């Protein structure tokens, strides 16, 4: 078995056991084998990846100091700007656009020595939970190609699950990293809002969006979160603190930690097998020395309602910039107003149009207080209830998703698709970190994800618990 994790691959490359070129070629060969079936990528950067690998190998030969990810391939969700490399958000409206700068998270990975192997498919502008909303066609789940990989970061999840890259970056506005991680049997992290720079992440819901990693191991996820984290002056919402130490805490264990199961997210609206896996995870943590309790956070059940006001409202504003003037697509017309309208109508898919209109409606004269104001109050309510829960618990535990991965076309009406985000949305609304850790499979061999939630900047304790779950996987 060849090394699968970023940490193991980086060690092999640094020790000279294998060259970076060899590692990159091995991943490119896997892409050649399965990409046609899976469609994880919008763009594979084979030539530039080989070139960067050669540069890493030259640096090793010259005895230079290497970054922690030197020679390790990484896949990037296609909503992160990469200078001179097409960045589409899986939308026709950005057709042909090449960003004039790199996202900060991308810069930091590159500085750590990582090699970008491709840009991954996604739901258009990150709006969706299955990657079926891509303008370029869906991505398939490598675990079982009849199933969706989840979304919106479905391509980034599939790329790691298929070993096209050991690690990838996604973005999470309402669960878009954690849900596909759960569906594909991976670790997925949504950091504290502001812990990772959003500079160069194409905006969807600016008060909710965060970049985070997909990985096979909790250690890889911790390493990537460390590397991309920390203050960035280019993002005014970035927390003015250095990145948190996460790899150092992974062996600490959970002795004495208080873990609260969120009872509101363990009910009948969730699959019994998902609930059972979450209870089994709690039992495993208890055996490792944690104390387990139950807590009710009823406002989380209003999360979807609040989210589908706040996220579309922010999206309607953020996506106003796609007007045919500055980037990508233009459908020509005799005057600018008509050109704007024809461009947007041709360039956006249905889900994006739906959310733009929903947000425009919620923000329109006379409805602002009723919708946006109310939804923002619900966010405060959720944050308050979480704060009360954290007086008695160090972390909270619940499923990542109400069900395991579903089949293509199974959630055709928008509202049923939105219900997927039930367990993940509350963390985005509160600005808190959360991690999905694989914990067994259901009767159809579909991976189950268990979610660990922590208060803002609580990543260290969250990763301790995640690492313990990883050490105590069900048989």
């Amino acid at each position, binding site marked *: 078995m060849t090394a699968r994790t970023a940490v193991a691959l980086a060690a092999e490359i640094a020790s000279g056991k294998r060259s970076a070129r060899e590692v990159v070629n091995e991943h490119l060969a896997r892409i050649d084998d399965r990409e046609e079936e899976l469609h994880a990528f919008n763009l594979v950067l084979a030539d530039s990846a080989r070139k960067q690998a050669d540069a890493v190998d030259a640096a090793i030969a010259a005895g230079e100091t290497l970054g922690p990810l030197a020679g390790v391939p990484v896949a990037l969700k296609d909503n992160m700007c990469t200078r001179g490399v097409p960045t589409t958000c899986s939308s026709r409206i950005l057709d042909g*656009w090449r*960003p*004039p*700068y790199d996202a900060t998270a991308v810069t930091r990975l590159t500085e750590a020595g990582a090699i970008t192997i491709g840009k991954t498919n996604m739901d258009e502008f990150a709006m969706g939970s299955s990657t079926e909303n891509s303008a370029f066609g869906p991505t398939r789940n490598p675990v079982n190609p009849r199933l969706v990989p989840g979304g919106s970061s479905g391509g980034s999840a599939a790329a790691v699950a298929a070993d096209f890259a050991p690690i990838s970056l996604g973005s999470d506005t309402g669960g878009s990293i954690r849900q596909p991680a759960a569906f594909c049997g991976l670790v997925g992290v949504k950091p504290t*809002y*502001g812990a990772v720079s959003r500079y160069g992440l194409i905006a969807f819901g600016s*008060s909710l969006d965060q970049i985070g990693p997909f990985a096979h191991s909790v250690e890889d996820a911790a390493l990537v979160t460390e590397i991309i984290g920390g203050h960035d002056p280019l993002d005014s*919402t970035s927390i003015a603190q250095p990145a948190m130490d996460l790899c150092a805490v992974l062996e600490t264990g959970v002795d004495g930690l208080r873990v609260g199961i969120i009872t509101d997210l363990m009910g009948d609206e969730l699959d019994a097998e998902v609930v059972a896996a979450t209870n089994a995870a709690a039992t495993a943590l208890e055996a490792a020395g944690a104390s387990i309790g139950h807590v009710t956070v009823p*406002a989380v059940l*209003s999360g979807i*309602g*609040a989210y589908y*006001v706040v996220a579309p409202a922010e999206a*309607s504003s953020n996506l106003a910039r796609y007007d*045919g*003037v*500055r*980037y990508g*697509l*233009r459908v020509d*017309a*005799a*005057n*600018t*107003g*008509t*050109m*704007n309208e024809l461009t*947007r*109508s041709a360039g956006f898919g*249905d889900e994006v*149009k*739906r959310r*733009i*209109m*929903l947000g*425009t*409606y919620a923000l*329109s*004269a*006379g*409805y602002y*207080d*009723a*919708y946006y*104001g*109310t939804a*923002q*109050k*619900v*966010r*405060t*309510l959720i*944050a*308050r209830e979480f704060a009360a829960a954290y007086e008695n618990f160090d972390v909270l535990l619940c499923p990542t998703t109400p069900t395991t991965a579903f089949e293509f076309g199974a959630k055709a*009406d928008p*509202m049923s698709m*939105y219900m997927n985000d039930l367990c993940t949305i509350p963390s985005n*609304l509160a600005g808190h970190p959360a991690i999905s850790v694989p914990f067994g499979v259901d009767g159809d061999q579909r991976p189950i994800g268990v979610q660990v939630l922590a208060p*803002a900047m609580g990543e260290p304790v969250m990763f301790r618990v995640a690492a313990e779950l990883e050490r105590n996987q069900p048989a």
Partner: protein
Amino acid sequence: MRLHASSTEIPLMSDELTRDDVTHVARLARLSLTEAELDTFTAQLADILSHVADLQNLDLEGVEPMVHPLPLTNVMRADVVTPSLDRDEVLSQAPLAEDGRFRVPPVLGEDR
């Protein structure tokens, strides 16, 4: 057009959202819809809004709206010139540019 209501109560949207509302919102959002799209979107948006309307059952008395997940203050930087994006590189990515500017069709004149 009903877009002048000033109540802070969430109306029961499933009953009330009309094709005219969606036409108006689409116009505000610079989207043109076919008749068939208008029907589909009206039904779907009404469904979503009826779910959102459940929020009015919450007791939000005395709850402040969350403006932002972080307690933020204005971020200031020193008033010094720093490198910025290359103008030609930015303009090269526009559908049409000329003389260092974005070029658009006439703005004034015949509307739509």
